[in-house]
């Protein structure tokens, strides 16, 4: 097949699928769901086909996994952020003294 005809065909298939498959707004919800439970066969097929032709949703999927992997790789940095106030310290001291 001439490259030109191949490109045309690819374009038509892509266009056809984008018109027929659920739009990105629904797909991103399914991408999130796929991280929680097994999707139905129909959902899996739609998702696979959509991802095949949509770079934006591919990146979306990649980013969600990136965020999960990064967040689980190392606990939150607990050096910054708020500290216990002196009043709270006093209160805790009193409560634990009574119970000791």
């Amino acid at each position, binding site marked *: 097949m001439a490259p030109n005809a191949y490109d045309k065909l690819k374009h038509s298939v892509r266009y056809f699928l984008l018109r027929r498959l659920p739009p990105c707004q629904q797909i991103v919800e399914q991408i*999130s769901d796929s991280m929680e439970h097994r999707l139905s066969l129909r959902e899996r097929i739609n998702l696979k086909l959509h991802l095949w032709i949509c770079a934006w949703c591919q990146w979306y999927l990649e980013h969600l996994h990136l965020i999960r992997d990064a967040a689980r790789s190392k606990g939150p940095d607990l050096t910054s952020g*708020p500290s216990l106030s002196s009043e709270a310290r006093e209160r805790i001291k009193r409560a634990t003294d009574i119970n000791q």
Partner: protein
Amino acid sequence: MEHRSPDKSPDCAAWLDDHGDYLFKYAVFRLRDQTAAEDVVQETFLAAIKAYANFQGRGSERTWLVGIMKHKIMDHFRRVTREAPVGEGADVEDGPEHAELFQASGQWTGHWDPNHAPTDWQSTPSELIERSDFWRVFSDCLSPLPQRTASVFTLREVDGLNSDEICAMLNISANNLWVMLHRARLHLRNCLELNWFKRPES
């Protein structure tokens, strides 16, 4: 004050000095509420006093205390849920829906608006986590979300609790949880991208 030998009786004052701030930050990060976090720290110490006989210096004190605190955090969510149940859809309706990220009209309705579509981050998880501002931006980005949505997201994606545990803890349906997680992910991903990867002019 006389220093007490660690294997005789629990030294709560020392715990407070050595681990109080750490435990407090640990709880604030998950509960997103400083008053609730103070209570949870106190409950953790009270439980630790009772359980001290089982510990007796085996392993790190901080790890042991964090282990107790994880249970106290779950207890907190259970209690809050009993007092103010999450109505079907209550938290779900509140969070930002981010409909503006998608095209509202035209032949590509519901597809990404090109101005808000994801871009190539060209990052690995380790590159992300090595950013010095990772956790600050992560936490800041979660703050516009409803408190419970942000907490649920943290328990799921940072602590790795599974869906069943979270549903049981908050007494919500799996469907409700999935919508909350989806909203949180859509919002957080967009916020991280705006902070880290988007050129300021766009």
